[in-house]
């Protein structure tokens, strides 16, 4: 299950966190949603502590100069890999 989060609304991350470990959940952050990846963001830090898989669009992180401010548990993915993630996930939850 892929939480595909492109907006500045953190609800998507919150919903993803409510899944139990039985569900295979990946959170993908794009556009201004990549700011949620900042280490000082409590919701995302908590999601990482829960061992949720979080990826972020590399180009959008780089443009914003954020690579030094995010946890190294967050996987940076290029557009080609994003397309793969989309087709690998049976369910896409757009937020």
């Amino acid at each position, binding site marked *: 299950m892929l939480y595909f989060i492109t907006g500045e609304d953190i609800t998507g991350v919150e919903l993803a966190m*409510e899944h139990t470990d039985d569900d295979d959940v990946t959170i993908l952050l794009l556009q201004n949603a990549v700011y949620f990846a900042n280490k000082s963001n409590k919701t995302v830090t908590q999601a990482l502590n829960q061992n949720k898989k979080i990826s972020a669009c590399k180009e959008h992180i780089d443009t914003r100069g954020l690579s030094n401010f995010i946890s190294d548990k967050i996987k940076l993915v290029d557009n080609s890999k994003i397309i793969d993630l989309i087709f690998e996930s049976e369910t896409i939850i757009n937020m």
Partner: protein
Amino acid sequence: MSEEKNIVILLRQPPHGTLYPVEGLRMTVAVSADFDPITVVINDAVFAFIKDVDKTMYSMHIEFIRNIDLDILIDKKSLDERGLTKDDLIDDVEIKEHQEILDIIANSTVTIPF
């Protein structure tokens, strides 16, 4: 696979100030020709269904959705956070516990947020 697709139209934004919720309900109506979309209502979008809100631009969509027996489901947590109760809402909607809302979203094939 198309006949198995579960479509969730996810309303998040308040009913006025933007055209998002109106356009979201219009999308539910459009998609209902081919699928049985469920309209899920969270956050400030719950205000779209209070009794006194001006529904000129979307009352026909609500009516259409109810006439073909599709569900409009309201997240109870979002209501609680805003100090709203069942009595504040119109009859055409159904209140669901947050966990049920989450399950419906998780079981969708396609979620379209507005």
